[in-house]
């Protein structure tokens, strides 16, 4: 008798294993599956940001942008509380991979904001794409991330979007700036093998050459290098007018500081990338930072001013970097998409189709964000690019940033206002 009862229970358990998921998914006809939110449960939004390490200021900056965007909606959507799950994606492919795996393993996550670094995105994209999730990056710029041509080094997969500008656009503008504003005839570029620095260096060099400038040196350093004398000497042999160095700290600090000791580079100008757009760059580089140009995001407008005021109110200081507005926009794109595709039941429970969320984000057109009018593109090499690319400027480091803690530095070139001859 007892054995029969056990058999019956086992059989019922097996049957339930097969049928319950089907029953639960009965009303979901999304090809990638659905995320269900019970009446009293929160909507879970993931964030893959760099929380620790040398550039944790970037994670802090973008996390603030995400939190303020949620706060602007009272941390709720469709009468459900929004819960933010933060994963540290570091600034490496491995970090991005781990963060993405953790989010992909959580069936309640509807989508994610992140990553900060392009290298982390390269690790995260395959996992996020495979799991049917969507990720919107606030500060990735590597051109490869929105390029669908895998054979040409592209790594774009469905589900990836970004609100930061494509490095191709940044590279084109910086090359124009070097050639036309600085009147440079020769250019050298240095990267560190990271997809972000490599992509930008290549984009600047390609455009500079297309505009009939002379690219005299393209080289690289290793991450972790402290001695730059060897590459600086090699660059000095070629006597470039401008060196484009989109390195991260501390390599960018070492590069700029040691350049002053190299014969032949006394009159050479450095242009740094957004990875050096932080108050710690002039602080750590010292006097050698004076006169260095750095590209970085430039956002303005009444809506942005209000967000800045709110930032100071919430965190008691200014944002540590310049990508908080992009993170604010990324969060809003995701929330707008969720709102558009949610299936609301009578009892207040919600259902989000994963493919539907992707389609809704991809359909974003002319969205009035802090960083401009956002339209998400589908054409490679811009697949997933939502940024209008207008929130970009070149700043110049002065003594005030080095010695008096002034930040941000004065504008040298505003691409949305200044025009070339």
């Amino acid at each position, binding site marked *: 008798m007892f054995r029969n009862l056990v058999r019956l229970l086992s059989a019922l358990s097996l049957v339930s294993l097969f049928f319950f998921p089907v029953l639960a998914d009965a009303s979901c006809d999304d090809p990638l599956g659905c995320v269900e939110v019970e009446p009293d449960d929160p909507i879970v939004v993931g964030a893959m940001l760099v929380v620790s*390490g040398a550039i944790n200021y970037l994670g802090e900056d973008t996390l603030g942008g995400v939190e303020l965007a949620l706060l602007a909606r009272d941390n709720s959507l469709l009468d459900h509380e929004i819960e933010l799950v933060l994963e540290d994606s570091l600034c490496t492919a491995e970090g991005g991979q781990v963060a993405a795996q953790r989010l992909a393993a959580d069936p309640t996550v509807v989508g994610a904001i992140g990553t900060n670094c392009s290298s982390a995105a390269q690790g995260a994209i395959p996992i996020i794409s495979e799991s049917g999730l969507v990720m919107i990056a606030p500060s990735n710029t590597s051109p490869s991330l929105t390029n669908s041509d895998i054979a040409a080094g592209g790594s774009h997969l469905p589900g990836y979007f970004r609100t930061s500008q494509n490095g191709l656009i940044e590279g084109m503008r910086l090359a124009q700036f070097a050639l036309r504003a600085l009147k440079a005839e020769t250019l050298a570029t240095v990267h560190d093998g990271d997809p972000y620095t490599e992509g930008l260096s290549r984009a600047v060099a390609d455009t500079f050459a297309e505009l009939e400038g002379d690219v005299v040196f393209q080289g690289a350093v*290793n991450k972790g290098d402290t001695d730059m004398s060897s590459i600086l000497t090699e660059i000095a042999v070629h006597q470039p007018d401008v060196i484009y160095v989109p390195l991260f700290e501390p390599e960018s600090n070492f590069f700029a500081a040691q350049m002053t000791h190299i*014969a032949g580079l006394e009159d050479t100008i450095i242009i740094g990338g957004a990875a050096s757009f932080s108050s710690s760059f002039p602080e750590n580089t010292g006097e050698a930072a004076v006169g260095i140009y750095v590209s970085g995001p430039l956002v303005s407008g009444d809506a942005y001013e209000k967000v800045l005021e709110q930032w100071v109110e919430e965190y008691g200081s200014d944002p540590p970097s310049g990508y908080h507005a992009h993170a604010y926009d990324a969060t809003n794109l995701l929330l707008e998409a969720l709102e558009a595709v949610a299936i609301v039941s009578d009892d207040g429970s919600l259902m989000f189709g994963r493919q539907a969320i992707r389609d809704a984000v991809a359909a974003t057109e002319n969205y009035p964000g802090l960083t401009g009018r956002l339209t998400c593109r589908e054409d490679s090499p811009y697949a997933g690019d939502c940024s209008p690319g207008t929130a970009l400027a070149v700043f110049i480091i002065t003594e005030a940033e080095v010695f008096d803690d002034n930040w941000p530095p004065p504008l040298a070139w505003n691409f949305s206002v200044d025009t070339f001859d």
Partner: protein
Amino acid sequence: MFKWKTDEFSWVDFTIDVLRVLIVLGVVIGAWNTLSSGRISLAQWVNLFAAGLSQGSIYALIALGYTLVYGILLMINFAHGEVFMAGAFTTVFFAEALNRTGFLNEQPLLSILLMIIFAGLVSMTVAILLERVAYRPLRGSPRLVPLITAIGASFFLQYTFRGLYGSGFKAYPQVKMLQGVISVGGINIPIVQIFVFCSALVLMLGLYWLVERTRIGKAMRAVSENKEVARLMGIDIDWVIMFTFGVGGFLAGSAGVINGMFRPQGVNFFMGFIPGIKAFTAAVLGGIGNIPGAMLGGLFLGVIEAIGPNLVLAGLGIPGANQLKDVIAFTMLVLVLIFRPQGILGERLAEKKA
């Protein structure tokens, strides 16, 4: 030199000799191509040499810690890079405080001296604790045991300091007195590089004097020769070993501050790893266990790293030569181990020491 010609033929000896010839040929051809092209000016070569000498001085100071400990205990203290980091990372806060008060630039030499003493004491404390807690209980156990412990201690120290001071990068304030250059025959040499070399030289000579001319130095040498006989002579072995770790630690901490003057940026919990490995390489290059060897090995490695990529690799048409700086360092280690296992100044070790 060519053993296979005179003795019984051996394929191993033959291969090593061919390798020897190929390496010498590669170096000569690369250097000839570079020098004959005239791409790099004399001023630039001097810049590279001076930078290499300064970097080498720092390697040498750290290498002395490896060599002292190896000389006395026959163990490789792989946590020594972290001893260097401990002093350098802690002192950056002291340096910031000196800078805030303006004392750093009002009394630069005194400030640097204070920083060196402070960093030296911090690193000395860490090194002594390491010996007392991690290594002494393992004395007498198989040699692999303290080696693995040292690797574990290295990680422990890294993450302890990460917990204490955070994972971000700090930078030493720049001392105005060390900025600028000195012109010699139209060639500009940065003052900071002269300072680094001179301070390291003073510390190295100080160590040499300590080991060769003092009672404790004599005790160190005696323990290094034979512990049991030294004990019979009334030498407190434990004290001498602890003192040796302390001296190595003090030199590593001092190297941390000197490094901070030379390359102020990039101070963080992981900063000791690469210099530690390079200094170990320098110690092996010079002949591990040999104090002048460690000094020479450090300087040699620093100069080779600075000049090698541009002189040899670029001349051989190898792309991205400067990225292969570390390859040069570790290739040197491999070559030394193949051709002269005892190092530049080392002597062949007796069976019990090898």
